[in-house]
Structure formats: C-alpha cells, structure tokens
C-alpha cells in the first residue's frame, strides 16, 4: 500500500466506576469525582490497539488521538503517544460543560472536520461512566459517513476499504466498508499493547499549551527544540462549532432527578456456613418445592 492512511482514535478519560468505594458519593447525593481515579476508557484502549494494528501493517499510516475533556485529559493523549500514536488533540472548552451524547458528538464531529481528511475513525463502543454507546454512531451521522459498531477484529485493510468482524449477541458478522468509516470497538477485541519505552522517553515531556503555562522556563526551551512535545488544544472557536448545539442548550436530555440507591431491607434470615445450618436450609427449600 502506498497511500498514507489517516486514522483518528476517539478516546475518553473516565472516572473508574468499576472500583467505586463507599466514599464515592457525597452526602448530598452527587458523585465525588475527586476520589475516583481517572483512567483511559477501557474500550477506547481496544480501539487504539485496533488502530495500531492497522499501522503495524501500514507503517506510513498516521494515528491521531482525539479526546474531549478538561485539561487533565491530556494524559489520555500522552498514553496514546506512549503506545504508538503519532499525535493528539485535546478538545477542551468550558462551553462543553453539561453536554449530553448528542452535543458531545456534535463537538467531536466539528473537531474531526477541523483535522482534515481521514480514512478511518476508531473509538470504543461505550465509555464506562455512561455505558450509552451513542457518541460513535451519532458522530458518524454528523460526519455523514457509515458506521460499524461492535467491531472485534480487523480482517483486511486495502487502499480504500476495511473488512471487520463484528461481535453480536449470538455470533459474529463480517462486514466490508469503503473509507471513510467510523468503527466502534468492543471489549472483546484485542487488549491494548503496553507502553513502548522508546515512546515514553520521547513523549514524557509532551504538554498542552495550558500545561506549559505553568511550566518552568527551561521546559519551554525544551519544547522549542522539540516541537512534537506540544499537544494542541482545540476550543469551540478553533473547531468553528455553533454554541447553541453545545453544553446544556445543545442537549435534548435533561436529568430530572437523581436518587441515591436505597435498598428497602428485607428481614433476611442470616446463616453461618456451619453444616447444620446449610443442611436445614436445603431441607427447607426442598420441602417448600423451591428446588427438587
């Protein structure tokens, strides 16, 4: 293949909702984000790996990581660079606050258009903080390109097409699409490779402009020598997005109410694991025809 493939990976920094402790909720019922570690959304890592595998076979492919979030989400771009991505952009602006999936997909589609021509977009099927699986298909629609969801493996990439195996509830389906196409990747796809020591050395000082503002002067000198250490930030103005489609005003869904989960406790019978107690329980279940 002679053509330079252009690949975008959509990745999100999420609070690790899988390991929520007792202090995850504040007394007022809101989420205490401060105590939850921020991680690379797991299925976005699968998506990054799928992109890297395309690049393995097409070394002149270029992978751009695009993430949307607050300043600290620059960490996602560094993680991408450490694993083999070529560059990254942080889409960040206060005007994004309160965006639901529709507003988010609009913002992402504006940023993708700003980045120019592309062949493939990979993203995780869903993020663990919402589990909606909506942003990928919504962004594809806004970009006017087809989507392939639930992708598990890339079978073939040619100059102008990709063949992908999808993982469905009851089996698999192989589909072929011509570029450009947006692909969402499931957690059953290959795990992402580890950081590459060479790339870690190269990019460990990569910073966004906001991060650099707080950096020492010798740091700025370093960046001038090595321009690849600058992670570009994109604002609403940079991607020419329309404010009314962003944030709360651009979000059709509203949260009407949030309730803490309160179980209405039943009066449970508590048993130990002593032989007699378990035998008694099994006898009771047999007697009342629950089992047997």
């Amino acid at each position, binding site marked *: 293949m002679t053509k330079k493939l252009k690949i975008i990976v959509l990745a999100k920094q999420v609070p690790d909702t899988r390991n929520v402790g007792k202090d995850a909720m504040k007394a007022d019922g809101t989420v205490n984000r401060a105590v939850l570690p921020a991680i690379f959304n797991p299925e976005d890592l699968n998506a990054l790996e799928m992109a890297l595998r395309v690049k393995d076979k097409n070394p002149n492919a270029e992978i751009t990581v695009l993430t949307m979030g607050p300043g600290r989400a620059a960490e996602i771009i560094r993680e991408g660079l450490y694993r083999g991505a070529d560059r990254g952009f942080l889409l960040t602006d206060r005007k994004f606050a309160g965006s639901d999936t529709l507003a988010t997909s609009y913002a992402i589609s504006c940023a993708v258009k700003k980045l120019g021509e592309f062949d493939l977009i990979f993203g995780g099927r869903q993020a663990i*903080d919402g589990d*909606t699986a909506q942003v990928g298909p919504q962004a594809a*629609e806004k970009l006017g390109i087809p989507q392939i969801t639930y992708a598990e493996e890339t079978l073939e990439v040619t100059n102008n097409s990709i063949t992908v195996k999808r993982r469905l509830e009851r089996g698999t389906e*192989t589909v072929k699409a011509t570029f450009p196409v947006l692909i969402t990747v499931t957690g059953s796809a290959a795990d992402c490779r580890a950081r590459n020591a060479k790339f870690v050395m190269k990019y460990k000082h990569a910073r966004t402009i906001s991060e650099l503002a707080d950096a020492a002067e010798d740091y700025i000198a370093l960046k001038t020598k090595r321009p690849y250490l600058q992670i570009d930030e994109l604002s609403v103005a940079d991607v020419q997005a329309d404010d009314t489609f962003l944030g709360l005003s651009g979000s059709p*869904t509203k949260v009407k109410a*949030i309730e803490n989960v309160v179980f209405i406790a039943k009066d449970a019978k508590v048993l130990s694991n002593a032989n007699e107690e378990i035998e008694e329980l099994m006898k009771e279940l047999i007697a009342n025809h629950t*089992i*047997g």
Partner: protein
Amino acid sequence: MKNILVYCEFEDGLIGDVSLELLSKGRKLANQLNCRLEAAIIGANLKGVEKQVFPYGTDVIYMAEDARLEHFLNLPHSAILQHIIRENNPQIVLFGATSVGRDIAPRVASALRCGLTADCTSLEIGDHYEKKSDTTYKDLLYQIRPAFGGNIVATIINPEMHPQMATVREGVMKKEIVDANFKGKIVKVETEKILNDTDFVVKIIERHLEKSKVNIKNSGIIIAGGYGVGSKENFNLLFELAALLGGEVGGSRAAVDAGYIEHERQIGQTGVTVRPKLYIACGISGAIQHTAGMNESAMIISINNDPHAPINQIADYVINGEIADVVPKMIKFYKKNSK
C-alpha cells in the same frame, strides 16, 4: 395525535422478543396517554408478520419490505426509520438495547436531533416543571436508569426536542398479549423512494449466528456469581450446583469483565433481566446495575464473606461464608436430602 412507535427487530421470520416486550410496555403507555401504539418493521419476507405483532395491541404497523433489507444494515434501516418518524411524528420511540437497537437508535436520534436514553430499567409518564422558564411540560416520558456505576438512579427527560427516544434491555419489560384476535392497520412504506445505492456501502460478507445456547431469562433457578467467586475454577462449583438443581448459571458484570464467565450469561442492567423463583447470589456485592436485573426474583439467597454486602439487604437468606466452602455443602446436603 402523537403516538408511540416501537422499532421492531426482525430476523429469520421472527420479531425479536425484546420488541414484543416493548410493544407490551408501549401499549400501557399508549393507554395512559390516550394515543395509538405503532410498530415499525423493516426487513425482507414480511408476509404474515403482523400476526406476531397485533396481539400486543398494536394499532398501526409501518411495514417496509425490500429484498435488500433481509439482514440489518445501519444505513438503509436508519433511512427508512427516519422517514417513518418524520412522516408520522410520534412522541415516543422505543428500541431494544441490543446490538441492532444500539446501532440504529443513536444514528436516528442524531439525524433528528432528539434525545436518547440508553438502557432504561423503567419508563413512566409524568410532568415536569421548569423553574427558569416557569413552564410545565405535561406527560413527558420519564426514562429511568441506573447511572454512574450503579451508585445512583437517574430520571432523564427530553422536554423540548421530540420524539423522546429510549432503549431498553431484553427482559426488563414483560411480554403480555392483550388480545390474540386484535387487528390493527398496516401501512406499507415505499422503500424504493427512500433508499439510495449509497445506503449500501457497508456490505455483509459473512454471518455466523447461532441460536442462543444459554437460556437464563427463562430459567426458574439461577446460580449467579460475582467477582467474589474469585476464579473460573470456583465458577465450576456454581455450574455443578446449577446442573443438580436444574438451573442456569449467571454472572455479574464484574465476573464477566474478570473473564470468569461469558458475556451471554451477564445479569443486570447491561445484561439480561431475570425473574426466577430462586436466585442464589454467590460473591456478588450487589451494585444496583446488577440488582436491577434480578430484584424481582421470588427468593434470593446471598452467599458472601462480607456480612455488609448491599445485596444482603434484598436477600431472603444470607449465608456468611466463602463460596468454595458453602457451595459444596449445598451440593452435598441437597444430594443427601433430595431422595
């Protein structure tokens, strides 16, 4: 009159179970809102399919039949569904939260610029008062779902940008036939006028779909394991107990993520919803995402080494102990006493 539309999945001559469940819920909502229940069916060889759908009280079926639509493909199915929605302007559109529903719903919601709530565990009708604008919105769809790792339950509304769209997992709503002889109206959708060649740029090369081997949803006894089971080997104990009692084995999301058990057996908001007569929860702490999928079980036994596991609060019996210790005892004493 603004109606309720259910997107019906259709494959191999059958309407998907989840779609029939949504029609059942849709019928109740339509009665409450005093509007019609409508269904959209898109596929090939649809002859006679209405017989599967009318008994759920479906007033109107929009039927889009085209040989090219035999298997689900995002672009043509989305184009047709958008057309049906634009023409008929429903107030609510419901989808199964399946690989098909979760593929088409966001695409259509984006094109129509309306809200979409994923994986609802409950749908209700209610009003909403917006303080800022001093406006009362009547009869909105309350889309209720656990959120944020199951630590909260959120009620989501779409006050302005309709239709209000939601996806619901299979098994969450109950399938209920209203009248076996119920007859509604069929409206044919002209696919030729809607579809373009460009809608077929993604091509299906191959399909390997099997009938589901696991039937957790309809099992009367479920032995479910969580992360606390600790290993794939310990899960074998659960399979042994299930085989003995004539039940099925299920798992929490944490157990599936840990690779202890396959995804097909996942119970909870992002898995299957079950209502067995006996549910034995082994090493499951009981996040609401899990309990949302099993709290209607007739009897719940929780086996856990943490006496304060949240699931114990909804259990009928709590056994404090290790899975590797308690489950073999249950097997032993069942064998001893069952004859």
